[in-house]
């Protein structure tokens, strides 16, 4: 089975600072991959390179059999890669429902997805918001949201793009126990529907329960990649990340 | 196009001299835009204001323009600090989109220019000083003193600023606030105060730059506009927040402008800095000596 996402020898520098070095990552369709690492290890940089927000200097990113080099971020989104931002970036002047319109109009419709009437779009937006419990605030602006709700909006906006691969970048930071469960269940449901998910998190409990495979990034290098329980026992991982 | 070696050397030397002046003009932008990330497009307006203030003092009191500029620098500092305060409270604090900040400074530029037109009219003004007029000759190289003197004082200004930024506490705080405001707060230093000081300094340099300008060429209110492109081009080319970079970039722009002017005609000079700007931003956004 060909990998859905195939990152080969990826390298990224910022001036003299090496953010990522020789990253190789392969994700199969339908997989649930967890990506962990200390702050500054390059996780978000990796996400940015995969999604096209940043240009990698070395290596390549292949998605769904095609090389993504040279594709802009919006082109990659249209090909099926969606992501959330670590610090939520909602469209501040649009209501929640309108925020969801954007991926529907510009990604799903651009792909030739099923979007026939305005009512259909409205329905779809509300349905999506309902899945994360935000439908009551559908016509409010993002500034009226709590931190938690912003993170949910961030996630549901990525979901609205009907991706094949969803990269959730710290979507659970600052959430309560039950809220974390909520998001986890949401992601699991998505995965059951066929969406491949890469979960980037610091909340180990969540990562461990969710991931089929765990990848560890430290100082721009991948130091571990495998079955979660085995990976967390590796001495280098313990030393670098878990601090034992 | 008459090409001769003499002309070439002369053009290059001219370029270097003017380049130093451009560096002084840009120094304020290096501070406000390069370091503080405030797009103060009104800076050339303050320079012209400086020129006129110096002109009045020179006319009425006969004081040397550079001395006059130094005397009014504190007033310009206060003006700069006040403007930053308004800017901060109205825009940065509210997290407004940059559009309104830009419009704010554009409005100030406009108000400055129109006020000067109203008060002084559109006639060219110039100052009197003993070094305006004589030219030193070194072989085939001409060094007009009215350009040489501002050039030398510019270099002093740049050196002084660089020393301030690297050796004094305030200077280093200014560099720090650009990089890590939080760390500064944790050191019990108010970042807003530091930014205000930095902006005030940047406008103070405009007074001196204005004196240089009116020594080098006659001035009328709209002259500032041709400097906007130049100043930002040099700042970006020089790596945004770097004074040494600004100096190098300014000299480069000065030389290329001078060569263009000598061999193709002076009316194409504005195009030079603009092309530099585009090229830099397209090819190497970090500038020549990038941060």
């Amino acid at each position, binding site marked *: 089975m060909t990998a859905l996402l195939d990152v080969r020898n990826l390298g990224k520098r910022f001036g003299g600072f090496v953010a990522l070095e020789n990253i190789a990552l392969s994700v199969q369709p339908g997989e649930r991959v967890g990506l962990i690492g200390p702050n500054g290890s390059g996780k978000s940089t990796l996400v940015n390179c995969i999604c096209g927000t940043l240009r990698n200097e070395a290596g390549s990113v292949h998605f769904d059999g095609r090389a993504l080099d040279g594709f802009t971020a919006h082109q990659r989104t249209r090909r099926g890669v969606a992501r959330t931002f670590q610090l939520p970036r909602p469209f501040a002047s649009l209501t929640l429902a309108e925020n969801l319109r954007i991926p529907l109009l*510009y990604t799903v419709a651009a792909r030739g997805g099923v979007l026939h009437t305005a009512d259909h779009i409205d329905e779809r937006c509300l349905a999506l918001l309902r899945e994360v419990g935000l439908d009551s605030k559908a016509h409010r602006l993002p500034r009226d949201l709590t931190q938690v709700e912003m993170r949910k909006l961030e996630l549901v906006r990525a979901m609205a793009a009907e991706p094949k691969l969803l990269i959730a970048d710290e979507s659970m930071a600052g959430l309560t126990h039950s809220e974390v469960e909520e998001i986890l269940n949401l992601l699991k449901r998505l995965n059951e529907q066929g969406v491949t998910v890469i979960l980037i998190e610091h909340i180990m409990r969540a990562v461990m329960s969710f991931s089929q495979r765990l990848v560890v990034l430290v100082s721009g290098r991948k130091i571990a990649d495998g079955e979660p329980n085995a990976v967390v026992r590796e001495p280098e991982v313990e030393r670098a990340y878990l601090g034992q | 196009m008459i090409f001769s070696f003499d002309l070439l050397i002369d053009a290059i030397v001219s370029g270097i001299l003017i380049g130093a002046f451009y560096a002084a003009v840009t120094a304020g932008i290096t501070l406000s835009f390069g370091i503080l990330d405030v797009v103060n497009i009104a800076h050339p307006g303050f320079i012209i204001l400086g020129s006129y203030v110096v002109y009045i003092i020179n006319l009425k009191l006969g004081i040397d323009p550079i001395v006059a500029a130094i005397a009014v620098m504190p007033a310009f500092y206060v003006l700069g600090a006040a403007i930053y305060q308004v800017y901060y409270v109205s825009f940065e604090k509210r997290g407004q989109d*940059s559009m309104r900040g*830009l419009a704010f400074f554009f409005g100030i530029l406009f108000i400055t220019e129109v006020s000067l037109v109203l008060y002084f009219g559109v006639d060219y003004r110039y100052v009197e000083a003993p070094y305006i007029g004589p030219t030193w000759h070194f072989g085939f190289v001409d060094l007009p003193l009215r350009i040489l003197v501002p050039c030398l004082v510019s270099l002093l200004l740049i050196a002084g600023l660089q020393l301030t930024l690297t050796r004094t506490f305030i200077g280093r705080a200014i560099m720090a606030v650009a990089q890590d405001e939080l760390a500064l707060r944790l050191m019990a230093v108010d970042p807003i105060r530091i930014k205000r000081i930095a902006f005030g300094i940047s406008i103070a340099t405009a007074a001196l730059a204005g004196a240089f300008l009116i020594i080098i060429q006659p001035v009328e209110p709209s002259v500032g506009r041709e400097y906007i492109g130049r100043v930002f081009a040099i700042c970006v080319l020089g790596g945004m927040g770097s004074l040494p970079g600004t100096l190098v970039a300014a000299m480069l722009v000065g030389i290329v402008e001078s060569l263009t002017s000598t061999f193709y005609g002076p009316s194409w000079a504005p195009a030079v800095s603009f092309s530099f700007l585009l090229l830099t931003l397209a090819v190497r956004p970090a500038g020549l000596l990038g941060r």
Partner: protein
Amino acid sequence: MRTHIFFIVSLIIGACVYGLAATLGNDYYFFAGYVVLQYVVLATAWNILGGYCGYVNFGSAAFFAIGAYSTVALYRFHPMPIPVDVALGGVASGIVGLGTGYLTLRMRGAFFAIATLALAVVFETLVVNWDYVGGSRGAYIVRPETIAPFGSYIKYLFLIMLVLAIGSITVARLIERSRLGYGFATIRDDELAAEASGVPTLRLKLVATTISGALMGMAGAPFPYYIGYLQPSSAFGLDYAVNSIAMPLIGGTTSWVGPLIGAILLGSLQQIATVTISSAVNLLIVGFLLVGFVIVAPNGITGLVQKYIPHRPLGQVGRRRVKADAPEATP
């Protein structure tokens, strides 16, 4: 209200305005009205790029002048009917807008703004050096005294500008209510997130600069006929740059209503001031109003109205339902 109905209603209102001006019996109202309508077009055009997308263009004067000078160039070749000038002026400016955008839109918004300012200076330099259109000496356009069936020529010019004004606000309104308008809003709000959501930001920005530039050029095309003697300083005047920014910012940038209000208010104010005080003072007032509004009332007059009369929404971008299968402004 569907767009074509809006257009028809506007035409009717426009016809009334024209009729009213005609009954006043003094050609002065047509001269003054022409300038105000010109600003409606400029302000609306600016707002498409500035208000909707968040990219500030300081070089409006350059696009306006391109329209004016393409008319002069055509006139030197062979005088054309003004509608032809308008169309060609729009094309020329549109192309320049596209080119400018292509060169500068990959940069941050601040750099784009600076680039537009520098660009305006460069264009002025080019025109001043171009003898075919008169260079710094200026160019004369012979304006006919009268033209049937309008009577005085200024009535004809007024009418053309009226049509352009109606056209531009219709275009603005159409954009607002289309997918394009949503896309523009995301560019303004958060370009990175917009790209991540599938919005082709560069393409949309280029569309915005092209439309904006073209409209400004169309506003400039009849200008040589209006003024009779065109000099670079009048075509590239700073007052065009300031007004096209001040009017939308004072009127309100989120919808087509803002620039319209701003242009009518500020434009009329300036017409009155120019006659009673000097034109320099009137420009000063515009400058102060711009700075004042930007500090105190950043959402302009429409923003103030919305604040104090909350149940009267004024067509903010994206408020209406979008029909995915309706003819859209852009694929």
